[in-house]
């Protein structure tokens, strides 16, 4: 599975690049918006279907209840801690690096927002770090899923409610669906507040 994913990722990136070089014979928005959304919505429906059929998964969810929120908050804390440590390691503004990490993988948010609050250079960093986080989650899924069921969800951060969700469910099983979705959902909701809050503290 992971081999096909990596192959298709590389083919997609190459085609996107070539498409731009040859004056866009395919409209970028067609692939980036329509095809992406179509595949995503279809996947969410299919994963919901597989989850609903599985009675055990529903029983487990009922038992877990509010405990599912422990995961996203620990991921948020870990991300910000990672930002703090890397600020010192790299000798850069630790507030900015914490804000960068508080995108939790949501690069279309972190890039512009961090850029606005901390300047263009950190905006670029926010964009790249969070984009690479999504990529790393997909690329390392076959390894991280063996460590612990929650490790790929921690890697994915906010992206586990959409892009990386199907891959995580594929590797961690149907029971991971709600845990991963709830975690990504919560982190997506926290991200804009966390970034602005860190900027105000500075």
């Amino acid at each position: 599975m992971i081999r096909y994913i990596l192959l298709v990722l590389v083919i997609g990136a190459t085609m996107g690049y070539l498409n731009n070089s040859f004056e866009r014979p395919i409209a970028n928005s067609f692939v980036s918006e329509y095809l992406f959304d179509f595949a995503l919505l279809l996947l969410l429906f299919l994963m919901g279907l597989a989850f609903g059929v599985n009675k055990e998964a529903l029983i487990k969810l009922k038992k877990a209840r509010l405990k599912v929120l422990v995961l996203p908050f620990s991921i948020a804390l870990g991300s910000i801690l990672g930002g703090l440590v890397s600020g010192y390691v790299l000798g850069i503004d630790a507030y900015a690096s914490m804000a960068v990490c508080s995108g939790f993988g949501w690069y279309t948010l972190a890039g512009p927002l961090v850029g606005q609050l901390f300047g263009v250079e950190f905006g670029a960093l926010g964009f790249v770090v969070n984009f690479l986080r999504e990529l790393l989650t997909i690329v390392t899924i076959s390894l991280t899923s063996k460590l612990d069921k929650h490790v790929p969800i921690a890697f994915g951060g906010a992206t586990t409610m959409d892009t990386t969700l199907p891959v995580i469910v594929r590797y961690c099983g149907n029971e991971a669906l709600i845990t991963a979705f709830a975690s990504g959902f919560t982190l997506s909701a926290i991200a804009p507040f966390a970034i602005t809050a860190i900027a105000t503290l500075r």
Partner: protein
Amino acid sequence: MLRILVLVAPLVAGILLGYLLSNRKPVNLNKVTFVAIILLIFSLGFTIGASDEMLNALPRVGLSAIVILLLTVFFSAVLAKAATKAVGMK
């Protein structure tokens, strides 16, 4: 907010339908899911390759980005594992 609703709707619809159909003979969805994942990853790759913003920023901030990324996912994974273990989440 609208984006979140758009994502939640098919998920909930799927779960409800799955629940209603759960007593019937199971249908294998692996093939359709596989095709949809491939389409999703392809369009993700395409978006990256077609993003000039991305391609310009990458070489400029690449090294610091990798250091930040690795520390971030490391601490996230460690804290997530410790926290879920502490509350007994399986």
